[in-house]
């Protein structure tokens, strides 16, 4: 288990968090390579289905990264995410999936360092949790 490298999907909103991830890159901030970034137009675009799909085909954790509340390019897309993720986590817990495996964070275009910090911290959390048990049932 020491060499367990979690697979992490990070849905990044186009306007803030994806730019934040970009900034982490251009500023040459090193962060965990376990993150697979998927760009979406808005964190509000992240249907709970996407998270379930990622988990069901082998992701150990899913990050949803959006603009800070009040900063949404589409005015209130991230507020929808803010309501959706807690309910999704509550449901996942009932289905035997640790709620830590899904995390919502706000990362602006100027927060490259925060992106790296979240990526590292989330990777460590997943390493501590161990592999997701999904896919290993009859």
């Amino acid at each position: 288990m020491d060499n367990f490298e979690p697979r992490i999907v990070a849905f990044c909103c186009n306007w803030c968090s994806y730019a934040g991830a970009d900034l982490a890159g251009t500023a040459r901030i090193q962060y965990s390579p376990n993150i697979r970034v998927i760009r979406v137009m808005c964190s509000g675009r992240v249907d709970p289905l996407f998270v379930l799909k990622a988990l069901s085909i082998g992701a150990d954790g899913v990050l949803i990264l959006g603009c800070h509340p009040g900063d949404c390019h589409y005015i209130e897309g991230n507020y929808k995410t803010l309501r959706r993720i807690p309910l999704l986590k509550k449901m996942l817990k009932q289905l035997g999936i640790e709620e830590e495996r899904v995390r919502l964070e706000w990362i602006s275009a100027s927060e490259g360092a925060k992106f790296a910090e979240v990526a590292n911290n989330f990777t460590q959390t997943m390493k501590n949790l161990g592999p997701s048990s999904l896919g290993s049932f009859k």
Partner: protein
Amino acid sequence: MAKLKIALYWAAGCGGCEIATLAIGDKILKLAEVADIVFWPVAMDFKYADVENMADKSVDVCLFNGAIRNEENEHMAKLLRAKSKIMIAYGSCAYEGCIPGLSNFYNRQMTFDRVYIETPSTDNPEKIFPQTRVKVPEGELELPEFYDTVKTLAQTVDVDYFVPGCPPEEKTTWLALEALIEGKLPPKGTVISHSVKALCDECSLTREEKKVKKFYRPYEIIPEPEKCLLEQGLLCYGVATRGGCGALCPQANMPCTGCYGPVEGVIDQGAHFLSALSSIIDSNDPEEIQRIIDDIPDPAGTFYRYSLPDSLLRRARIK
């Protein structure tokens, strides 16, 4: 023209679907004119051997209701698939798992413990559980193996059509039978219903603005008539459910619980409803949002009431 040969079977289900096939009323006479029922254990005496002795593909249509819960269900599903030209998953259990599928929140041992030990009316001090084989003086007795996970019919055998509903409404059943009788079959994989849209499309209640500060369970309030139940804070599943039933429940002031399955094109009904429901929560404050969500005591069981085995995750993970 030779008469159609129809088989009906009841696997892991409550039997409501068997009643629903009879609910077509006097149309059953029309059915009898054009079809012979060659296998229907609930109404006539048949043995396994009767089905085994049929030639492959000699049955025109099999209406299979019930989920796949044990070895016998699976055996019969495979047998009837081999004997039938057209296999129809009839009713929500066969289509998406339905209420028996809720046991996918548990495993076999947990289910057995509950049923044979914990239920208040059970007296079983020797902790006797069903065995697949047991020796008695007369010989060895067999019971089918009980599975950990409930599966849908389509997860077990190839299915041609699906008829939704718990149980299917009379008009939905007849829509399927009429297509068979007239030979006007839809493309393979079709979910046969009068609608491909959400139930709200045919619901007569008045919709205004969906903003909810508090969710209620049906016993907690008497809803206003004529007003959308979801807007009143009841978890009405119509937004994420295929129409075709005529919105009977909302008209009787009971929220839709989602038995007609997902809207056309949706692959996970629970996620769809979760998405719709969380969008209408009227708050931007994380603490208040949490309080509103706390009004929903069992989101997974509510959102996947009929579709847990057919959902992306299929079952809960048991540590």
